[in-house]
């Protein structure tokens, strides 16, 4: 089996983007630098050819590339990204194995990594379906028989492009167009791997399904695309798991998630992100909710060094609702977790709730940029935002930038923000009950995010628990 690799100098791209942000480059110069970084028409054509894509998908990619070159760099992009040493990135890494629906056909070394993460085990125990993506390609895809019988489709988007071109044409990057921002465009040009799920009308999937993404080598770029379409009155809980072993150099993740909930449908989307500390994580997450539909985002964004995650819902049908619960953790010097949910009320009687909890220590930085928008005509809208920060030491910082754009007088938009420092008295109390300082700290931290942990399936809550405790191990003496 040939091992296909294409590479890209992401440093050059980030640097050029930052320069462009300050208009230090003209369009021609920017184009030249991007091409010399390895991102050119021919790279895209090569990827598209490897995937045996139809013409329309290639056109989508090329259009995205064009937009990438034209769009300004988002002003929220911190400048230090430009000075990272990401250098040459494997843009497209095809693992040397074919996709299968049988774990036994997966080579032992790779299988062992998944075993350690408990993936095949959890599939057996409680998942309705699983797609595992290693590097740029799916290596495992399986859906339980009873779901197939009900007409549930779950497969990598590449396969869906071949088998369900009409559905993909209708939804792919529709709610999150490449024109949205530079890194959405980059995603459109380079997307590879991911999961496509379709839930037919009235089908309620009781067991969650999972997409599990592994970045398997350093200097890699992962651009997976997850697309969930839930037809009228259906229900699905999709779990997105992310992991990467610790590398010496940076990897870059620029994935995208699009959720479409039709009338009366309900999509719950849970992410447990534990990229290693040298991953730069852009996640572009957006959903739309038709009449009476419900979108729930639950996100534990614990890993990676720099993370940009803004789950957003467009409430476009009457009575649509959405909640977004996000936990971020910045646990080291120079760690930067940028998050914030966006709720766009575009129809009458829509309701939204956002709970954002961030935990910081050892000099990490947490930033919240949320948006509540109530469009003209979206009468009777209700939105509630709660944004809490817990800081475990003095070096740590948290910033909150909530934005409200309200164009209807009767909108009920409430915002609460609290900053907590771990209190010496609470810690002392717990220690007086025989609990050591580290354990007392993790009790307080876990207590702080309890509201969100409750929403996670047991296995994932346990996993998150473990990750947080491990991170707290690194915590220096507390105040």
């Amino acid at each position: 089996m040939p091992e296909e690799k294409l590479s890209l100098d992401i440093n050059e791209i980030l640097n050029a983007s930052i320069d462009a942000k300050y208009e230090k480059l003209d369009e021609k110069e920017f184009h030249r630098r991007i091409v010399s970084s390895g991102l050119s028409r021919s790279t895209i054509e090569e990827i598209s050819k490897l995937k045996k894509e139809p013409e329309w998908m290639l056109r989508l990619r090329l259009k995205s590339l064009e937009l990438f070159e034209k769009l300004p760099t988002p002003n929220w992009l911190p400048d230090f990204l430009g000075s990272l040493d990401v250098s040459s990135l494997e843009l497209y890494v095809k693992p040397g194995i074919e996709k299968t629906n049988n774990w036994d056909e997966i080579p032992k070394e790779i299988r062992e990594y998944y075993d350690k993460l408990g993936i095949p085990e959890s599939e057996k125990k409680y998942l309705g379906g699983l797609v595992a993506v290693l590097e740029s390609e799916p290596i495992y895809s399986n859906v339980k028989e009873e779901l197939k019988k009900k007409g549930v489709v779950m497969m990598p988007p590449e396969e869906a492009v071949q088998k369900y071109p009409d559905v993909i044409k209708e939804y792919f990057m529709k709610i999150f167009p490449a024109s949205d921002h530079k890194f959405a465009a980059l995603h459109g040009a380079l997307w590879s791997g991911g999961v496509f799920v379709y839930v037919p009308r009235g089908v309620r999937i009781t067991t969650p399904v999972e997409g599990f993404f592994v970045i398997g080598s350093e200097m890699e770029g992962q651009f997976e695309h997850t697309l969930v379409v839930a037809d009228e009155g259906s229900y699905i809980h999709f779990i997105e798991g992310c992991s990467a072993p610790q590398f010496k150099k940076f990897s870059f993740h620029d994935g995208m998630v699009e959720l479409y909930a039709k009338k009366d449908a309900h999509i719950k989307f849970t992410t447990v992100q534990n990229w290693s500390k040298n991953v730069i994580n852009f996640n572009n997450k957006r959903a739309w909710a038709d009449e009476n539909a419900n979108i729930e985002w639950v996100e534990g964004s614990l890993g990676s060094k720099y993370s940009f995650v803004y789950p957003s819902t467009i409430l476009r049908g009457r009575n649509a609702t959405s909640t977004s619960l996000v936990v971020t953790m910045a646990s080291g010097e120079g760690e930067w977790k940028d998050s914030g949910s966006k709720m766009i009320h575009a129809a009458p009687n829509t309701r939204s709730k956002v709970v954002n909890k961030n935990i910081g220590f050892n000099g990490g930085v947490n930033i919240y940029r949320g948006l509540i928008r109530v469009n003209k005509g979206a009468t009777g809208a209700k939105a509630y935002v709660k944004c809490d920060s817990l800081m475990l030491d003095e070096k740590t910082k948290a910033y909150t930038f909530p934005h409200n754009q309200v164009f209807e007088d009767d909108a009920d938009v409430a915002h609460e923000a609290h900053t907590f420092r771990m209190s010496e008295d609470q810690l002392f109390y717990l220690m007086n009950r025989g609990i050591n300082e580290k354990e007392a700290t993790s009790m307080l931290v876990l207590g702080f995010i309890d509201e969100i942990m409750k929403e996670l399936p047991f296995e994932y809550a346990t996993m998150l628990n473990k990750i947080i405790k491990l991170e707290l191990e690194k915590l220096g003496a507390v105040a």
Partner: protein
Amino acid sequence: MSVLKIQDLHVEVEGKEVIKGISLEVKSGEIHALMGPNGSGKTSLSLAIMGHPKYKITKGRITLDGEDITNLETDEKVKRGLFLAFQNPVEISGVKLSTLLVAELNRVRGSSDSVMQMFQTIREYAKTVGVSETLLNRGVFEGFSGGEKKRTEILQMLILRPKFAILDEPDSGVDVDGLRVISEIVNKLKKEINTGYLIITHYRRILDYLNADKVHVLYKGKIVSSGDMSLARLIDEKGYESVIKN
């Protein structure tokens, strides 16, 4: 037979000396009462003994059976058998009371029961001190009344079974039934495992119930008077003035 000894202890808080040389010796099975007007340093003394980072011991030492435990970590002191029931315990809304109690059973008592069994044990203990199921399911002290807080502190003493317990005003704001329950638990542990006590209080009533062996009066950071129950009776009848004048 164990001995908790406090020798010439000096404590500073926010740069101000609040305990100015206190010596005390409590043996297993003894009940010592510590009285004294507001602000005389009773709470500071108890927090300093347990190692609160704000209450700095600048001089003197604490020993348990001859071993110097002055600078041990708080949780280590607890593991060696010290216990403090707080006058004003802080609310910890994120941690469920039942979770905390299970952790105590497991960490300090070394219970190897299943979590389900430990919950059962806790429910039974809670029942004996009148802590309701609702409270067990709430955040620690979240929205607890004064009396409920005191009962919860005693509940934890019952779970931890200490060698020595400092109870900081266990009887303030407690109803008559509560006072009886608390006294019963104090006596129970004394009988069962010979716990020694330092009980901070303003009221003679609890001391009558418990029949305190010794009574000390603290004033401006110093013990100004020590005696037996007759001292508590005197304070009850004539106020603190009668014992701290000279």
